[in-house]
């Protein structure tokens, strides 16, 4: 796995899509995003403390990518449950909630011509976010808020990527 760390970026998804001939499983990690986004351009609140990354996926069949997006939610939820003893709820296919509040979102973007030219999966996980703005505090939460302590972002990142690789191997076989 090759990891590129950024400080403040517009969006790791945008960065990933701009790289020419990116290598598979390249991970772009940002400390902060000023224009993090989800589906249909919905804003993803991305202050310092959270875990925001995009991964260049291997070129796969579009049906497999569809499955992988769903499996990514399971990978993230499993990691949260097993490491932090929390009860995550997956809102299929790509949002994860804890206590009725959103803690993670997943977005897969493909560039498709005759075949899939590029696939990028972006994951935003609210890890060490201490406080949300008023308009989000009733609908969003973080591991820090739920656990009352900080978590290790890099360890979580590695575990998610390991899980994704395993899942993709399974569905591509």
């Amino acid at each position: 796995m090759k990891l590129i760390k950024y400080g403040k970026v517009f969006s790791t998804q945008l960065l990933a899509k701009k790289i020419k001939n990116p290598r598979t499983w390249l991970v772009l990690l940002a400390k902060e995003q000023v224009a993090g986004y989800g589906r249909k351009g919905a804003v993803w609140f991305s202050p310092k403390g959270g875990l925001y990354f995009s991964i260049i996926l291997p070129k796969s069949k579009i049906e497999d990518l569809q499955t992988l997006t769903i499996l990514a939610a399971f990978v993230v939820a499993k990691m949260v449950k097993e490491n932090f003893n929390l009860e995550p709820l997956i809102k299929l296919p790509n949002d994860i909630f804890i206590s009725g509040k959103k803690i993670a979102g997943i977005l897969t973007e493909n560039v498709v011509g005759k075949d899939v030219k590029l696939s990028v999966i972006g994951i935003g996980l609210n890890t060490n976010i201490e406080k949300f703005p008023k308009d989000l505090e009733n609908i969003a939460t973080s591991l820090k808020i739920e656990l009352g302590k900080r978590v290790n972002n890099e360890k979580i990142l590695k575990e998610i990527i390991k899980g994704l690789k395993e899942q993709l191997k399974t569905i591509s076989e």
Partner: protein
Amino acid sequence: MKLKLKIKGKEYEIEISESKEGEVKINVGGKEFVFGKDEEKEKVLIAKPTFPKRDFSKKEIKAPITGVISEIFVKEGYYVKKNQKLLLLSAMKMENEIVSDFEGRVEKILIKKDQKVKGGETLIVLR
């Protein structure tokens, strides 16, 4: 049979006909060339074409997967380059940027924003 050919911006009117004697007449821009079955009445020097082979058939952009068209970035008449982003197709919460596999002019857009499409359905025709 009459046809028009555009080569490097210059238009050529070509008429092909066959006489009763079985000769083939080809008229290019008023200049006539007559070909018999085994002979040529006027030798025509034809330079080895250097321009690339062009495909005049329809170029269709199809939906790779069933979903909803969430954005259209081109209009009919637009000239698009290869790999240019044409539209956004949302499917199972994946966003798919559909890019052109061809270079050409957008002849027909067969879909509208927010329209549901099936995998394999033709979305845009280029020429």
